[in-house]
């Protein structure tokens, strides 16, 4: 039986704004059999999405296919005319984008976008298309399949949008569906649902698929074969089982090892609790919007949260989007002054608002944000970014300042040359390190880490965690580590506080995770974390599914 897709020696080149041509896909070849789901695994910059898009004869602006062939059902996409490609897109090969939220046109009703393929290619009359869409909605387990299509994108949840985008792809009965990191932006409990839905419809339709992801665990659930990519070159191709359990290529092993939850082993200090906690949060209530008559904010996000952080130890805060974990960090940092409740640093009460706090208090408590891209001023060189807190807090100038900057960069394992670069010229990992270094520049006692590894590739993230640990040893720091990812939290925290809907669900010792969870929500949460095992998804109790 002939392959549905045959990619041979594919080459893609990109033109930088300097006008330099650089190859980003260097001779990639692999096949996809009909009905087979192949996963493209790799870190950012590995070219996985670029390859996936070439299957539709599309390259993002600045890129172009410079060589090789991509034959789909016997026809070479590369050689096709624009018109032919148009005709093929949506009907033979369809695309499920990474962020459905961005990929849906905010101005149009969902149904119109879902059935647009049918409209464009006149594959079927509109009423029939609508009927089919409703079926798909039902198949994808969307609530109220009859009417959900009448809504606008902003009126449905992220998980639902992601499923709708699948429906949008499937409406044209394509031979091949491309999933571009379709669950990365979702919470674990939602992700599990979406994965389920995808898997079932794909199986039912007997369609072939390309699943682009950086998350091995997710891929393990859905793919038949895995293609491991790095820097636009195929590292290893093999059946999922083989790749997971008998990785041949060192890089694959590296990927896998990054997944093994390394329990945070350190001499547990029983007396830690006894000592005065360095940071204590007591009954904090906070939210956004104007204060109501009861002097409570219009939109309440934190409903009476309390926690304590012993000196030299780390507190993990875990929860899904909207659980209020980031808001907690902002409340502690004084960026969002709590409506009531206390924040104590070393037993001293802190002013609610950062503006009112003393320089010293501000210095001792630093916050590091998730997205280094937005957390670093893109218009200022790294040197300035690191130099400012030095001048601001410690009044350092000239050579002293320069030395300290070099020190800091060295601390976060960055070459001093970087001091003259702009953030835009750094990689994600480098940026996050700079982001961290800026906090260190203040010589803080507590660092609030808000999802600092979430945006990073697994390997890089693991490295950053390691760095955090080393720094802690050297500088006797205490972290509040906020994340949605259990494994990272496990990797560094002594205690883990589970949050949901602005409230503390329970606080557990890290080494008791994940099975020590008593509260059903935490159990659900932990159970939803994909495991590196092909059977996991089907094994997850349906109780999880319902509550999603």
């Amino acid at each position: 039986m002939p392959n549905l897709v045959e990619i041979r020696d594919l080459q893609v080149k990109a033109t930088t704004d300097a006008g330099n041509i650089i190859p980003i896909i260097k001779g990639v070849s692999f096949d996809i059999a009909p009905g087979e789901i192949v996963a493209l695994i790799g870190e950012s910059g590995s070219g996985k999405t670029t390859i996936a898009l070439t299957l539709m004869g599309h390259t993002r602006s600045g890129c172009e296919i410079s060589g090789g062939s991509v034959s789909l059902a016997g026809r070479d996409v590369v050689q096709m005319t624009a018109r032919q490609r148009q005709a093929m897109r949506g009907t033979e090969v369809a695309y499920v984008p990474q962020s459905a939220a961005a990929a849906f046109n905010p101005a149009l009703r969902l149904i119109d976008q879902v059935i647009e393929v049918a409209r464009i290619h006149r594959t079927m009359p509109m009423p029939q298309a609508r009927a089919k869409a409703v079926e798909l909605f039902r198949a994808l387990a969307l609530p109220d399949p009859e009417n959900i299509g009448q809504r606008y994108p902003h009126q449905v949840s992220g998980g639902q949008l992601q499923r709708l985008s699948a429906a949008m792809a499937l409406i044209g009965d394509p031979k091949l569906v491309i999933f571009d990191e379709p669950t990365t932006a979702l919470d674990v409990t939602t992700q599990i649902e979406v994965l389920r839905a995808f898997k079932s419809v794909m199986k039912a339709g007997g369609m072939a698929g390309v699943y682009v992801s950086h998350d091995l665990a997710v891929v393990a659930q859905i793919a038949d074969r895995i293609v491991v990519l790095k820097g636009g070159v195929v590292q290893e191709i093999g059946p999922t089982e083989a790749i997971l359990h008998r990785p041949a290529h060192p890089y694959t092993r590296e990927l896998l090892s990054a997944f093994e939850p390394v329990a945070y082993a350190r001499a547990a200090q029983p007396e830690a609790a006894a000592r005065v906690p360095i940071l204590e949060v007591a009954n904090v209530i906070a939210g956004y919007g104007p204060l109501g008559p009861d002097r409570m904010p219009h939109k309440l996000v934190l409903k009476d949260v309390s926690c304590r952080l012993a000196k030299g130890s780390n507190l993990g805060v875990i929860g899904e989007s909207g659980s209020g974990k980031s808001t907690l960090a902002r409340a502690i940092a004084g960026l969002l002054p709590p409506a009531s409740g206390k924040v104590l640093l070393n037993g001293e009460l802190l002013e609610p608002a950062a503006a009112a706090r003393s320089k010293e208090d501000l210095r001792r408590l630093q916050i590091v944000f998730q997205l280094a891209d937005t957390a670093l001023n893109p218009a200022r060189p790294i040197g300035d970014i690191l130099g400012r807190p030095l001048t601001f807090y410690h009044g350092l100038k000239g050579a002293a300042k320069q030395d300290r900057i070099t020190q800091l960069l060295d601390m976060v394992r960055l070459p001093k040359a970087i001091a003259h670069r702009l953030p835009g010229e750094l990689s994600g990992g480098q940026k996050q390190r700079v982001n961290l270094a800026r906090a260190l520049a203040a010589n803080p006692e507590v660092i609030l880490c808000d999802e600092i590894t979430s945006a990073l590739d697994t390997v890089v993230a693991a490295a950053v965690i390691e760095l955090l640990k080393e720094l802690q040893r050297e500088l006797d720091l205490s972290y509040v580590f906020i994340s949605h990812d259990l494994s990272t939290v496990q990797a560094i925290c002594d205690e883990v506080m589970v949050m949901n809907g602005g409230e503390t669900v329970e606080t557990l010792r890290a080494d008791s995770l994940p099975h020590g969870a008593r509260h059903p929500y935490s159990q659900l949460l932990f159970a939803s974390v994909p495991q590196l095992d092909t059977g996991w998804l089907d094994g997850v109790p349906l109780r999880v599914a319902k509550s999603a």
Partner: protein
Amino acid sequence: MAVSFPTPRRLGYHISWTGILAATIVLFWAVIAIIGPWLMPHPPGDIIDFEYFGPMTGELWFGSDYLGRDMFSRILMGARYTVGISLAAVVLACASGVVLGMTAAVTGGWFDTILSRVLDALNSIPSKLFGLVMVAAVGSSIPVLIAVLAVIYLPGAYRFARSLAVNINTMDFVTVARARGERTPYLILKEILPNMTGPVLADVGLRFVFIVLLLSGLSFLGLGVQPPNADWGSLVRENIGGLPFAAPAVTIPSLAIASLTISVNLLIDNLPVKIRDRSE
């Protein structure tokens, strides 16, 4: 804008040929504006030809105006006023507009509301009429002209800068600076401003063009530089009678205005872009 010029590749900048051409013309006029008066073959007020709207000759390169004055000299002199006044006005308007806009965006609250209202009101008064009233009231001296033009274009610059600053203000790096305990001036100048220089420059350029044109419009309504000097707009206007004969006295200043405004525009559209190749 008049002093920005293409930066060579090796400094890590890239600029299109159109950009270079435009920059050259802008630069040229800028230079003329500075050294023009020393190049004038005749004093701009001197009547050296009894023929009016005279043609281009070897002696009078750009012909003579409605009084028989040397157009070449008058153009050279005019460059100083057109470029100078417009530049001063645009700098004044945009500088104050941008600072106010950023402050409003960062501080918000009453300051923001009131300022926005007032400037919006100002915006609703037709520019030419406002200029007319003001100059009729306090007379037409260069400072007055500059002030009036600046006031007319301040609201626009403010609106523009504010909308930009509002977006940047929500960025994490600004929050970080706040968390560090930075005060408003630092936030504005060090964190926000560097991130809007591009669009602001483009905006400055556009406003410069509009100001040049408004200046010529005002000159049509009888307001402008004190004689014998005149900005290009006034030159066109005082010689408009020569239009039927396509006298250089009217065509040349028009071309001068066009060349300046067009090149400023092209320059904006083709500003040098910093070469950014991610280093991984």
